[in-house]
C-alpha cells in the first residue's frame, strides 16, 4: 500500500468550504436570540465617572444593558496572562486586573465598557448611542520607547514596567566585546501589525435553562483551553457546564488564541437574561480589539572579528504589551524571542534584555511567529550589516558561523536536534541564481532602477510543547496534546484531536497519518476537532504545534489500536502474538496465509461473547471490549525548522515604489506529510512577512486613536503585491517525535521580513530604513542617496 504521508493529497475540507457549506460562527443562529453590541471607550485613557443607561434601556427592542458593576458583583473574573515571567532581579512580573467590562478606568480605545442586548442588531446599535458615559480623560501613554517615562497607567505598576527580563550572561558578553575587532550596531523598530484573520471575531451563546449548560460557539484556535480559562479564571461556569465549540474558523494567526471580553460577557449574560446571544465584530472592532503583534524597539550589537567570526551578541529591547498582559503576551517577547535571538549561528556569548511596558493601546500577543520574527529580524539585520562593513559576501559570512554538527547546543537555551544550514543556504543560492545577481542589478540600473538582494537564514523553536520546559519557564499549563482514535465496529475511524484547524488542513493531514498507521483508506477516516463535547482535551493550535505535538498523539493512539488489534488477532487466528505482523491494514501470521484485516478485528472487538464451538469470543482473557484508544503526547523537545530565504527587490527612485522581483525560500521542515498543504503554509507566511516589511503600519496618533482601523487605512497586501514565490526544501528529521516532523506554519513570516528589508537596504546602498518600507519612506531615502552621491562626486 502506498504511503499517504508524503503525498499531495487534495484537502477533504475543501468541498464544503468551496460550496458555501462551511459553518462559521456568524453563520449560526439560534431561535429567540438577542443581539449584543458593546459600548466601547472612545478614549485611550480615562476614568469612568458615571454610566447612565436609563435612556438606552427605554429604547425600542432593548432586552438588557449590563456594565462593569454587574459583572463585578457577580464575581466574574477577568482576562489573564498565561505566563509568569520574572525580572532579572528575581521579582515577579506586574500584571494589572483586566475585567471583561471596564468599571473604573478604560485603558485603550475600543475597550468594552457596557453591553446592550436587543431584539435586533439595528436596535442594539441604536441603543448603544443612547448610553451616556461620563469620562475624565487622562493623558495616554502611547509610544513604546517613551512608555517608561509616561504617567503610571495602572496603580502600583511603576514606570509602566511589567518586567525587566534578562536571558544570558552580560559579563561574558562584555568580555567578548572587549576583544572584538569590530562592533556592528543596529537600532530597529519591529512594527506593530494587526493579524487580520479574514473572519472577524464572533460568538453565539446558548444557555440551556434545564441542564444549566452554556454552549459557546466562538472563533477560537483552542476551544478546550478557552473553556479552561473561562471556567478557572472567569468563573463563568464549571467546565462540565460549559461547552465551547469553535466550528469553521476563518484564520487566526494568533489573534484567536485569547479568550476575549466579549466571549466572557456574552456567556455570563446569556445565563442572566436566559436568552441566546449573538455577537459579531465589525472589521473596525477587530482592528481596535483583536490582539496585535510585534511592536518592539531594539538596540542590538554583534561583536565580530575581521575575518567575520561572531564573538558575542547583545540585545536591548523594549516590548509593548499594550494595555493589558494577555495569554501569550508576556512570553512572546521573552522565551519565544530571547532564545532565538542568536539565530542559526555559533555565538559564544549572548544576552537579551527585554523591558516589557504597558501602554494605552490594544493588547499585544502572539502573531504568526510570535517573538521569533522579532528575533530573526534582529540577528539577520546585524549579520547582513556585518557582511557589508567587513566586505565579506553575505552568504559567506553566514556559512562561516553556521554549526555543522548536530545536536547543536546553543549558548542560551536550546539544543537543536537536527539541521543542515549549509545545505539550505547552498540550495537557496542555486535556486535564486545568486551568482547572476550583479548582471540583473546592472540591467535594472540601466533602466533607472535600484536593485537589491537580501538573504536571511533562520531557525525557530516551535511545536511549542515540552510541558516540563514551558512550565519551568512560567507557563500556567502543560502544553501536551491529546487524541482519541475510535475504530467503529463497521469499519470507519473517527480521529479526535485537541488541535484546531482554521485553515491548516488537519481534516486531511491528520487523516493521512491515521490512515497510514492503521492501513485503512483515507475515505473512512474522519478527523473531529473544535468541540469540547467531542474528544478528550486539547491545548489547541498555535506555535506550529498541531502536527509535531497533536499529530504524534494521533500516531500513538493508532499504535495502541494496532497493539490491541494484534492481541485480538492472535486469539482469533489461534497463534501467539509474536507470530503476527501488522502491515497495510492486515494482521498476518508470519510465514502463512492466515490473516485478519483490521476491520475484521475491530468488528470482533465489539462482539466479545461465545455462542458455541463455531463462535468463540475473539477477546483474550481479561481484554476489554471495544477498539478506542487515547493518547496524550508531550514531546521531549521543541522542533527546530530552519532555512534560508533570498529576495530581490527593484526600487523606482522617482516614486519610491518597491517591487519584489524574486523570492526564493528553502526550508527544512523534517518529514513532510502533505507537500501541497506545506507549500500553502509557506506562501501565506512569506506574504504576511512581506506585508509587515513593506505595507502594514499600525498607527496610533498621540492621543491613542488608532488611525489605521479599516482596510481603507491599513495596507493589507493584495494579490498584485507579490511575485510568484519559488520554494525548495531540504530535510533533516526531527528526533523528538516518531514521524520526524517539524512545524511549518510560521516559518515564512519569520524569515521574510529580514530577507526583504536586507534587499531594500542593499538597493539603497546600505541606508537604514524602518519597516514598513513604504513608497514615501523609500522615496525620501532615494533623495538622501542622490544628495550624498552628488556630494561624493
Amino acid at each position, binding site marked *: 500500500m502506498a504511503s499517504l504521508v508524503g503525498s499531495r493529497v487534495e484537502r477533504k475540507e475543501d468541498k464544503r468550504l468551496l460550496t458555501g457549506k*462551511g459553518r462559521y460562527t456568524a453563520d449560526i443562529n439560534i431561535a429567540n436570540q438577542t443581539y449584543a453590541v458593546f459600548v466601547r471607550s472612545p478614549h485611550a485613557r480615562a476614568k469612568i465617572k458615571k454610566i447612565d443607561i436609563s435612556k438606552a434601556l427605554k429604547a425600542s427592542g432593548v432586552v438588557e444593558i449590563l456594565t462593569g458593576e454587574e459583572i463585578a458583583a457577580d464575581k466574574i473574573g477577568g482576562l489573564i496572562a498565561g505566563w509568569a515571567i520574572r525580572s532579572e532581579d528575581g521579582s515577579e512580573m506586574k500584571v494589572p486586573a483586566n475585567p471583561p467590562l471596564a468599571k473604573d478606568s478604560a485603558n485603550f480605545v475600543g475597550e468594552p465598557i457596557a453591553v446592550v442586548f436587543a431584539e435586533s442588531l439595528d436596535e442594539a446599535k441604536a441603543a448603544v448611542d443612547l448610553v451616556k458615559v461620563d469620562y475624565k480623560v487622562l493623558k495616554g501613554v502611547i509610544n513604546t520607547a517613551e512608555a517608561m517615562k509616561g504617567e503610571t497607567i495602572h496603580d502600583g505598576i511603576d514606570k509602566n514596567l511589567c518586567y525587566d527580563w534578562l536571558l544570558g550572561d552580560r559579563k561574558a558578553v562584555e568580555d567578548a566585546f572587549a576583544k572584538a575587532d569590530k562592533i556592528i550596531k543596529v537600532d530597529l523598530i519591529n512594527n506593530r501589525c494587526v493579524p487580520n484573520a479574514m*473572519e472577524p471575531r464572533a460568538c453565539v451563546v446558548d444557555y440551556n435553562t434545564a441542564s444549566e449548560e452554556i454552549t459557546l460557539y466562538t472563533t477560537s484556535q483552542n476551544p478546550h483551553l478557552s473553556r479552561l480559562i473561562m471556567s478557572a479564571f472567569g468563573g463563568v461556569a464549571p467546565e462540565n457546564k460549559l461547552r465551547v465549540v469553535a466550528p469553521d474558523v476563518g484564520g487566526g494567526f494568533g489573534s484567536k488564541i485569547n479568550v476575549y471580553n466579549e466571549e466572557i460577557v456574552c456567556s455570563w449574560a446569556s445565563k442572566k437574561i436566559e436568552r441566546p446571544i449573538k455577537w459579531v465584530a465589525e472589521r473596525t472592532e477587530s482592528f481596535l480589539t483583536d490582539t496585535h503583534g510585534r511592536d518592539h524597539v531594539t538596540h542590538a550589537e554583534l561583536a565580530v572579528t575581521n575575518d567575520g567570526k561572531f564573538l558575542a551578541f547583545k540585545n536591548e529591547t523594549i516590548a509593548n504589551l499594550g494595555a493589558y498582559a494577555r495569554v501569550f503576551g508576556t512570553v512572546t517577547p521573552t522565551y519565544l524571542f530571547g532564545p532565538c535571538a542568536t539565530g542559526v549561528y555559533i555565538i559564544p556569548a549572548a544576552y537579551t534584555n527585554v523591558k516589557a511596558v504597558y501602554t494605552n493601546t490594544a493588547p499585544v500577543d502572539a502573531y504568526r511567529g510570535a517573538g521569533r520574527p522579532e528575533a530573526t529580524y534582529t540577528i539577520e539585520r546585524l549579520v547582513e550589516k556585518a557582511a557589508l562593513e567587513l566586505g565579506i559576501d553575505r552568504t559567506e559570512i553566514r556559512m562561516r558561523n553556521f554549526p555543522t554538527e548536530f545536536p547543536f547546543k546553543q549558548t542560551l537555551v536550546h539544543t537543536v536536534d537536527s539541521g543542515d544550514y549549509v545545505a539550505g543556504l547552498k540550495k537557496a543560492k542555486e535556486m535564486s541564481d545568486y551568482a547572476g545577481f550583479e548582471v540583473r542589478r546592472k540591467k535594472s540600473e540601466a533602466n533607472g532602477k535600484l536593485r537589491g538582494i537580501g538573504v536571511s537564514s533562520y531557525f525557530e523553536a516551535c511545536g511549542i510543547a515540552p510541558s516540563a520546559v514551558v512550565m519551568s519557564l512560567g507557563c500556567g499549563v502543560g502544553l501536551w496534546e491529546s487524541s482519541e482514535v475510535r475504530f467503529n465496529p463497521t469499519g470507519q475511524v473517527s480521529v479526535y484531536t485537541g488541535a484546531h484547524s482554521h485553515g491548516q488542513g488537519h481534516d486531511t493531514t491528520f487523516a493521512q497519518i491515521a490512515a497510514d498507521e492503521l492501513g485503512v483508506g483515507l475515505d473512512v477516516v474522519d478527523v473531529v476537532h473544535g468541540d469540547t463535547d467531542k474528544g478528550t482535551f486539547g491545548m489547541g493550535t498555535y506555535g506550529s504545534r498541531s502536527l509535531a505535538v497533536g499529530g504524534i498523539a494521533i500516531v500513538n493512539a493508532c499504535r495502541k489500536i494496532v497493539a490491541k488489534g494484534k492481541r485480538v488477532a492472535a486469539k482469533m487466528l489461534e497463534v501467539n502474538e509474536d507470530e503476527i505482523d501488522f502491515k497495510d491494514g492486515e494482521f498476518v501470521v508470519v510465514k502463512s496465509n492466515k490473516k485478519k484485516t483490521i476491520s475484521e478485528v475491530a468488528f470482533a472487538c465489539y462482539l466479545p461473547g461465545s455462542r458455541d464451538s463455531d463462535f468463540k469470543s475473539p477477546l483474550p482473557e481479561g481484554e476489554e471490549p471495544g477498539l478506542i484508544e487515547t493518547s496524550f503526547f508531550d514531546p521531549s523537545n521543541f522542533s527546530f525548522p530552519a532555512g534560508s530565504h533570498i529576495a530581490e527587490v527593484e526600487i523606482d527612485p522617482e516614486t519610491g515604489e518597491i517591487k519584489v522581483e524574486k523570492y526564493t525560500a528553502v526550508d527544512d521542515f523534517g518529514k513532510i506529510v502533505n507537500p501541497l498543504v506545506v507549500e500553502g503554509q509557506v506562501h501565506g507566511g512569506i506574504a504576511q512577512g512581506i506585508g509587515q516589511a513593506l505595507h502594514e503600519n499600525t498607527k496610533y496618533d498621540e492621543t491613542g486613536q488608532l488611525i489605521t482601523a479599516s482596510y481603507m487605512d491599513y495596507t493589507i497586501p*493584495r494579490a498584485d503585491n507579490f511575485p510568484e514565490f519559488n520554494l525548495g526544501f531540504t530535510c533533516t528529521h526531527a528526533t523528538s517525535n516518531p514521524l520526524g516532523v517539524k512545524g511549518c506554519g510560521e516559518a515564512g513570516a519569520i524569515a521574510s521580513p529580514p530577507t526583504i528589508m536586507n534587499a531594500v537596504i542593499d538597493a539603497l546602498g546600505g541606508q537604514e530604513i524602518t519597516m514598513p518600507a513604504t513608497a514615501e519612506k523609500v522615496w525620501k531615502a532615494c533623495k538622501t542617496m542622490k544628495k550624498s552621491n552628488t556630494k561624493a562626486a
Partner: protein
Amino acid sequence: MTKVTIEVNGKKVSKDVPDHTILSVFLRDSLNLTGTHVGCDTSQCGACVVHVDGKSIKSCSTLTVDINGLKVTTIEGLVKDGKMHPMQEAFKKMHGLQCGFCTPGMVMSAIDLLQNKKNPSDTEIRKWLEGNICRCTGYQNIVAAVKEAASKM
C-alpha cells in the same frame, strides 16, 4: 418596506424588505445563504462577492431593493447536478484556499474574470483580484487555480 422579487440561484424569491437592507444581509439572514461572507465594513475585502445578472458585485454595498427583478448567483448556486463548477474544482486541486473565509468571494470574482478574459496572464489575474483580500494563501495558489480553471473552461 419594499416588496422585491429576485431570482436567487435559479429560484424566484419574493419578500418585503426594509429599504436599507443590504444584499449580503438579505442573502445571509433572510435566505440562509451563509456562503456569502462579510469580512469588512468598507467594501474592501471582497468576501461578499456574488453575481448579479452574471457580473460580480460586492453584496455588502448593494441595496436589495436596487436589484429588484434581477438574477443573483451565490457560491451555493454554482454546483450543478451535484458537480462543482470548474473554478471550484480548480481551487481544490491547486490548494487555492486555506481557512475558506475569503473563498466564496474569490471564486465568484475569478469566474467573472474568465467571462471577460479567456486566458488571463498572471499579472492580469493578480490585478483583477485586487478587490479580494486573502490572508492565508499569499495568493499564489489562487492564481494557479484560476489558470487551471481557465484551461478547463
